[in-house]
Structure formats: C-alpha cells, structure tokens
C-alpha cells in the first residue's frame, strides 16, 4: 500500500515537472519569434527589416495570415520590409488597443485607432511631419493627398503641426453619400392601389391603407406600415425629419441636431419644423401606423420583423442586404417626401461625402525606423494597380483595369456559397484598410457584374441632389484635444436629453407646455454653447 502511494506521488510530481517543462518551451518559442526588431537575412544578401503591426481582423476573412495577401507579398519583395502581423478582432479591439497604447506599443496600427485615441495619446505616435519624414519617404502618398484634396496634407495635420496618421480607403464612395434610404413594399402598394408617395399626406394615406386593407393577405391586422428603428445605424428616427428640412450629414441622430446654412450653424431641435415632425410622428404612432417598439427593439427583432412580411416601409442601405433577391425585388425606393408646411425636403447624407479613414495607418513612437515603414506604405500607393490590389486583391479577379485606365469591379470565379464576394474581398484584400484612393481613381460598378451594388448606386442617384451639398457640411480637420473634450463634455448630457425627448414626444405626444419646457431644458443642457462650438469651428477660431 505504502509503495503504491509512493508511486502515485512520484507520478504526480513527474506530471508537474513535465508541465513546467512544457511551459518553458512555450515561453522560449515566443521569445525567439517576437524577440525581434530582429532582422533576418534575405536571399539577395541585404538585411530584411521586420516590423510589428497590430491590425484589425475582419470577421469575414477566411485567412488570418495577412502575409498571404498579394499586396503584402509584393510590398515585401519590393521594399525588403517584413511585417509580423498582430490581428485583433473588432470585439477585443477597445480593451486591447488601450493596453497597447499605454504599455506595449507595436511599430504601427492599421485600422484600429480613432482620432480620439490619437488626441489622448499624442506622444505614442510618431510625428511624420518632423524632419519632413513623410515628404522624403512617401512621395506618392503626399502627391495623392495634395492632388485630390483642397487642403492637402492639412487634412491629417494636428493643430500643433504634427502628422500622426495616414489615410486608408477611398476618398469618396458615391453609394455612401445618401446613407439610409426609405424603401416601400411595392407588392403592397399595388394591392392597395396606390403610387409611391411624394408628400407627407400621400405617405399617410398609403400607411393607412397598409394598416386597414390587409395587404399581406393573411386575414390578420398584423401589418406594421412604417418601421424605423433606433437599433440599426441607418434606420434611425431623425431620418424621418427630412421632409421638414431637417437632416444630418450622416445617419446618426446627433448629426441632425444642427445644420449649416449659409455659413451659420443653426439648431434644429428648437425649431417649429422639428415640432411638426414630432407631432406627425406621434400621430402615426397613435394610429398604429408606425411601430412603437422602434425605440426599444434590438437589431435582431427589427430584422426578423422585416423578414416576416409584416412591414410596409423602412429605412435601409438596400433591401438586397436584408432579404433574399426575390423578396428584395418587391421593394421600391421612396426618394422624396415633401411636407407641405415645411421648408422643403432635405435628405440625410452628404454629397461627395469624404469616406477615407484619416487614422487608418498610424506609426507609433516605438518604431525604430519609421522611414523604412513609410517607404513600405508608400510602395502600396505608387500606382493605381497597387492601390486596388491592396483594396480588393490581385488584378483580374475582383477588379480589373479597362484600356482607358478606369477600374471596374468584377466578380471573381472562385466564389461559392460559403465563400462569397464579401469573404473574397476581406480575404484577398484589405478593403477600407487598404491604400488611400483619390476620387478620380474610383472604381465603377457595372450592372451585369454586381447587380446589388449597382442597384444601390442607382437608388442613390434618384435622391443625390437632396443630400446636403458641400457648403452645408462641416470641414474636416483635427482640433486640439482640449477643444474636443470641451465639446464631448457638453454632448454627454445634451444628447441623452434630446434622445429621451424625441422618444417621449413621439410616443406620448407633445403640447405647448411640454414644448416650452423642452426649450428651457435645451438652454440648461448648453445647446447654445454646443452650437457656438461648431460655429467657432466653422469660422476657424481654433
């Protein structure tokens, strides 16, 4: 018995010993791979430079090794720079990047950093303006910025004159300009014998008919004629203020809380038009024409309602993104809705919207040799072909170049049900994390190659003129971090208040007393100061 126990104990000890040994070898292995600003000898005898880049990992990619992408193979060959990628999934990004910023900087970040993070960790990023680092090492990048933008390099320059990041993605993407678009169930419209509405009164009649005439034909009054939803990015309630001349430059509710008119920043949520919009919305809710769950439902609930065949109209990017092709073909765009008592229809969205990410590629202060890394980055911007290779993968598959030099999007042949065009793009290319692509190099989308993308563009064309023109948009530039925090400090309370006010007014209605109380509350929540901040920004006071 004793002997037996002794054996057991010995076996246990041995197990622990092995465990420690296994652990040690694990540790050793990583030490050798990450122990490197290390260099490895390349075939032609020169030293290969190695950099560590933390990169955002898109969930649709089917290959997590970034060095398998065509563009990085080409770049490594041309510049002798080897990249060790550290992929970080979007779900972990916030926690992980914040830790990295304070204690463990890689050589660069790709697609993970926001301008706020730069503002609050300015010294963690290399200043590319210093000693003309950028101009000397990335001539193609500089050339692209200066030829395509009126303010050139200023777009990435901070008020102290430093440049902490470079841009990724296309300058413009036309299909983005219009944000969420209203679509209506055409089959239902035909059933109730109505046309696509163009005014608010017609819209009301259509909704009423949807509600009362059982257009889905199941004998139940389960129709939801109008389904906005706060849960999704482009279906928010402020879209519906468009008929009253209230629109944001993007699809967030907050961007519609103020507008720029003839060089002046004006409030929207203190106007009579805003009140009319709320009253009309409340009328729809109280008659069951607009879903009252719009403020509380989750994205899943919202989408299942749409797919259930009980919704008459809603805001979306394109019905083809929400349902099967045969069902999506039943929907029709509602481009314009005029309110007779309003100042004219304005569509949420911006004409020529700037869509590049200004903080896409950030070299950190931990990088020992930013010049080489810049040359590597510059190589990928040195020709249109390379830019598109970095965006969509190898030429001739998801894109190709016509004889006149324009780029056309295509469908590669390798697609299957489990490997769609989206998988392809994120596997072979970097999509919006690729090189900056100026407007005049934008790719065209042909109807026969990609019907759904083409359809979206076609829809945008119908209402593009109603989107906010350039002179009604705020300029794009960085401001000093303390100025930003001054604004965000005001926004916390203000936005919560306005959001709640909209929800209660739409659901419970509004009278003179509550409207006046609202105007007072706006004062107390520093609405005027908030508007003044933007006015000063517009006037270039800081």
């Amino acid at each position, binding site marked *: 018995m*004793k002997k037996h*126990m*002794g054996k*057991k*104990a010995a076996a*246990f000890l041995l*197990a*622990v010993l092995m*465990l420690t040994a*296994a*652990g*040690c070898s*694990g*540790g050793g292995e*990583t030490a050798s791979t*990450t122990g490197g600003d290390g260099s490895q000898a390349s075939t032609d005898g020169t030293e290969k430079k190695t950099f560590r880049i933390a990169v955002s*990992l*898109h*969930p*649709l990619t089917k290959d*997590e090794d970034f060095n398998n992408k065509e563009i990085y193979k080409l770049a490594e060959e041309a510049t002798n720079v080897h990249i060790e990628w*550290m*992929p*970080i*999934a*979007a*779900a*972990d*990004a916030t*926690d*992980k990047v914040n*830790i990295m910023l*304070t*204690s*463990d900087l890689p050589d660069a970040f790709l697609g993970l950093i926001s301008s706020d993070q730069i503002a609050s960790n300015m010294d963690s990023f290399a200043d590319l303006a210093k000693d003309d680092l950028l101009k000397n090492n990335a001539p193609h990048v500089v050339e692209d910025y200066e030829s395509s933008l009126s303010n050139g390099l200023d777009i990435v320059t901070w008020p102290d004159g430093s440049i902490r990041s470079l841009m990724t993605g296309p300058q413009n993407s036309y*299909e*983005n300009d219009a944000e969420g678009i209203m679509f209506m169930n055409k089959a239902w419209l035909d059933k109730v014998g109505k046309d696509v509405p163009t005014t608010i009164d017609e819209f009301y009649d259509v909704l009423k008919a949807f509600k009362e005439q059982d257009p889905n034909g199941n004998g139940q009054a389960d129709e939801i004629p109008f389904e906005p939803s706060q*849960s*999704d*990015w*482009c279906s928010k309630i402020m879209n519906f203020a468009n008929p009253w001349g209230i629109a944001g430059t*993007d*699809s967030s509710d907050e961007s519609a809380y103020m507008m720029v008119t003839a060089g002046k920043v004006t409030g929207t949520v203190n106007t009579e038009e805003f009140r009319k919009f709320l009253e009309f919305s409340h009328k729809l809710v109280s008659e069951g024409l607009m879903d009252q769950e719009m403020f509380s439902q989750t*994205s*899943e*609930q919202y*989408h*299942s*309602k749409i797919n259930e065949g009980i919704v008459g109209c809603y805001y979306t*990017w*394109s019905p*083809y*993104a*929400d349902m099967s092709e045969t069902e999506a073909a039943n929907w029709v765009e509602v481009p314009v809705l005029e309110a007779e008592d309003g100042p004219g229809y304005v569509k949420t969205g911006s004409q020529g919207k700037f*869509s590049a*990410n200004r903080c896409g590629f950030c070299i950190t202060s931990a990088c020992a040799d930013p010049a080489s890394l810049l040359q590597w980055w510059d190589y990928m911007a040195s020709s249109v072909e390379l830019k598109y290779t970095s965006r969509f993968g190898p030429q001739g598959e998801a894109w190709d170049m016509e004889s006149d030099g324009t780029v056309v999007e295509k469908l590669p042949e390798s697609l299957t049900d489990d490997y769609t065009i989206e998988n392809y793009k*994120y596997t072979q290319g970097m*999509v*919006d994390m690729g090189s900056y692509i100026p407007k005049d190099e934008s790719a065209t989308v042909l109807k026969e190659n990609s019907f759904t*993308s083409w359809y979206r563009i076609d829809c945008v064309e119908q209402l593009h003129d109603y989107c906010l023109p350039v002179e009604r948009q705020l300029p794009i530039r960085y401001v000093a971090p303390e100025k930003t925090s001054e604004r965000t400090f005001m926004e916390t309370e203000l936005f919560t208040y306005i959001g709640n006010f909209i929800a209660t007014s739409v659901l419970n209605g509004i009278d003179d007393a509550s409207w006046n109380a609202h105007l007072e509350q706006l004062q107390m929540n520093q609405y005027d100061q908030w508007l003044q901040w933007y006015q000063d920004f517009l006037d270039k006071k800081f």
Partner: protein
Amino acid sequence: MEKTKKRSKGNRMTQDIVFNAVIVLLLLFLIVIMAYPIYFVLVASFSDPTYVNNGDFLLYPKGFTLLGYEKVFEESRVWIGYANTILYTALGTALGVFITMMAGFALSRKELPFRNAFMGFFVFTMYFNGGLIPYYMVVKSLNLTNTRFLMIIISAVAVYNIIITRSFMLSNVAEELRDAARIDGCGDGRFFFQIVMPLSKAIAAVLVLYLAVTYWNSYFNPMIFLTDRSKYPLALYLREILLTVSTNAQSSVTSDASAAAMLQKMSQVIKYGIIVVSTLPIVCVYPFLQKYFVKGVMIGSIKG
C-alpha cells in the same frame, strides 16, 4: 371519539399533501426559471434564426435545422480553440489544485511561523490590486505575454480557494496525525502526499471544479495577453462571434452594408450552436463532481 381521531388524522394527511404539493410546485417553478434559459438555448440552436428572433417558439424547435452546428464544426478556429481550452484547463487545474492544497495545508498548521502574517498578505490581495496596466506590465517584463505557459499559470492561485482549503485542513487534518506520523519517522513531504492528500479528496474535488470552470470560461486574460490567434481558447472565439454583429453595426457607417448584413446572418445561425458546443463539456462534468462539491464546501465552511 374514534371518528374525530380519524378525521384529524385525515386532516393531517391532507395538510401534508397540500404542504408537499406547494413545496413541489414552488420547486418546480424554480427549476423552470433556472432551466428554461438553458433549454431555450438548446432549442434555439436547432431552430431557424428567424423564429428565434421573433420569439415564435416555446417548447420545441421550429424550422428544425442543423445548419448552426454544421457551421460551427466547419470553423477550424473552433477546433483550435477547443484544443487550447482543454490544454489550459487540464494543466491549469492540475497545477492550481496542487499549489492550493500545499498552501492551504501549510497555512492550516499552527507550527508555521508568521502564518497569520502570510494569511494577511494573501487576503490583502483580495481587496487591493495594482489595476490592469501594472498587471500587464509585470507580465510583460517577465516575458510571459503571448505564451501558453502564462495561460496555464495565470489563474492557478486564487486566495479564496486557499482560504477554503485552509479551513478544511484545519478541521479535517488534526495536529495529532502529524505527531503520530512523525513518531513513525514520516517527514513533511511524505506526510503531505500520503496522508493529507488522501484525506482531502473532497476539497480537492471542489478545487477541481472551481478551477476547471474558471479556466474553461476565462476570456479576459487570454484576450489581453495573447496576440497569437492560434493560442486563443474557445471562450474568446465565442465572444468574438457573439460581439461581431453589434460592433459591426456601429462601425459600418464606413460602407459595406452588404458585408454587415452577411455577418449578421452568419452570427445568427452560429450563435446558439456555439454556446451549446462550448458549454456542453463542462455541464457534463458537473454532475459527477457535485456530490463531492456540496460535501467539500460545507466541511470547509463550518470553521472560519
């Protein structure tokens, strides 16, 4: 007289029945409350996502499909994650039980010098810690970031576990045993392995369960410290898949709505399947350890 006696007996019987019935009903109610969410996940994993989101079913799968499981098992990441989780759980639990038992035993012996000071030092860490960033920097300066070794040792010692082990040993391993063993010529090491360990099976089972569950579920430490995705445990993949849609819905203002929509569909299909797949093993182990579990925690808790 006879009659009234009978009646009162009958009354008591009905009272008992009513009492029992109420208890049973209450317990059943509790069981339903606790078990239904688990059951729901199970059923949802076999159902068409559309019905799940509508809340269209209650008791049995609607639109039966195995698509979710197909997709889950197709993902190579799931298998890698599984292997890692099992590795971390098995080795981490073994190490943790070993260390905790030794610490608990030592701290329960009255002859250990400064034992109260040691205990105070341990307990101190339950109330105060350096915070995430100093923690990270310590680990980094030890060159342990991004290693499997770290994933194994990082949760091995929990002060709470040491305390329950110490209490258990205080009451179950008498000082006199030590004396008797010493007279027979038994040293400290042998005493621990041959006498204390076999006497402490109950508390060891508790530790195994606590530690195994901790390791199995842990996602935060791996998320912070691992950069190499081939070392990720299952819980981290699970989290990634569950959070994918919400983070993407917010950031998809930069174009690609079709990609966002596709993700949404993918994660809806896969969501419940992966929850089942990742929790099933630990759920299966639980009943076998439970008998020790209740016993062990109770013994440990009597003396503070």
